């Protein structure tokens, strides 16, 4: 089965985008179902994350998807973080099963959002259909990452970005320079990536 990472590495961006959308649609569909089934807690920061999910799912239904090659694609980063965690947990479980001897050499799994860097780990998970467990983890990561943004404006920018708004649209909402939105998106990415390493 070829998937979007192979396509991306081969330079076929259109095909990679298509596969990414298909995978992503299933993943957020599962995540949303999980959210609807779960009892709602009242925390505000959780609502922000859930709102991002909800809006995104509506956008996805309308055919709006985050671009795979957008460096500030927070959804891709979120999926990468989540998949990394799943990969690490599976690897640790395998090692424990084998009786320890942990050799911490798989730095690619702990890398940043670059698909090439995380390809090895992602292929183990993304090559398959998204599972409800992965979707649940994605939901949890979404909530945790929003909590890690200690500034209401950063949260708002992340939310609008994940809802599919463009830089210029977000700048207009905040009455600020577009470069400010870009800069703060990079800051959000830095904050989120910093927590990738367990």
């Amino acid at each position, binding site marked *: 089965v070829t998937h979007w990472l192979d396509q991306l590495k081969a330079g076929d961006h259109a095909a990679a985008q298509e596969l990414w959308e298909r995978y992503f649609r299933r993943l957020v569909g599962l995540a949303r179902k999980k959210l609807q089934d779960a009892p709602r807690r009242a925390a505000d920061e959780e609502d922000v994350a859930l709102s991002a999910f909800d809006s995104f799912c509506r956008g996805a239904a309308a055919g709006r998807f985050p671009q795979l090659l957008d460096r500030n694609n927070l959804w891709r980063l979120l999926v990468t973080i989540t998949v990394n965690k799943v990969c690490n947990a599976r690897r640790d479980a395998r090692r424990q099963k084998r009786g320890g001897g942990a050799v911490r050499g798989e730095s690619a799994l702990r890398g940043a959002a670059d698909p090439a860097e995380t390809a090895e780990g992602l292929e183990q998970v993304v090559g398959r259909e998204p599972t409800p467990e992965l979707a649940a983890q994605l939901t949890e990561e979404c909530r945790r990452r929003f909590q890690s943004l200690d500034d209401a404006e950063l949260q708002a920018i992340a939310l609008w970005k994940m809802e599919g708004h463009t830089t210029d649209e977000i700048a207009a909402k905040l009455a*600020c*320079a577009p*470069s*400010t939105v870009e800069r*703060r998106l*990079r*800051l959000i990415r*830095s904050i989120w990536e910093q927590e990738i390493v367990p």
Partner: protein
Amino acid sequence: MSDSSPADPSSSQRALALLSRVMDREIRLGQPADTASLPLALARHVDQVCYRFEAAWKADGAPGTPPRIEEYLADTPEPARADLLRELILVDIYYRCLLGQAVRAGEYLARFPELERSPP
């Protein structure tokens, strides 16, 4: 966008080309172009300084005394300085255009010689 030194069109064109590269984030100023590559504490610092600079533009931008990039750049050494300078220039250009003020590429180059020293 226009340069203020029409007497030397080649210099003016060169300055504009350089400025457009700054805006396109192609200029690295000897440092990585991406704030994401700065340590998080420095990226936060760059963001906060730019935030104050933009707030000053919003509060008192026109037509009196606009904030000066130099004052906001003063306390920031490398490696964050190059990123901060680029971000401050971008904000500066945005508000000058918004207020209908001339944006002079040559002026930035004269004020910040490190722009000239950056790799092509």
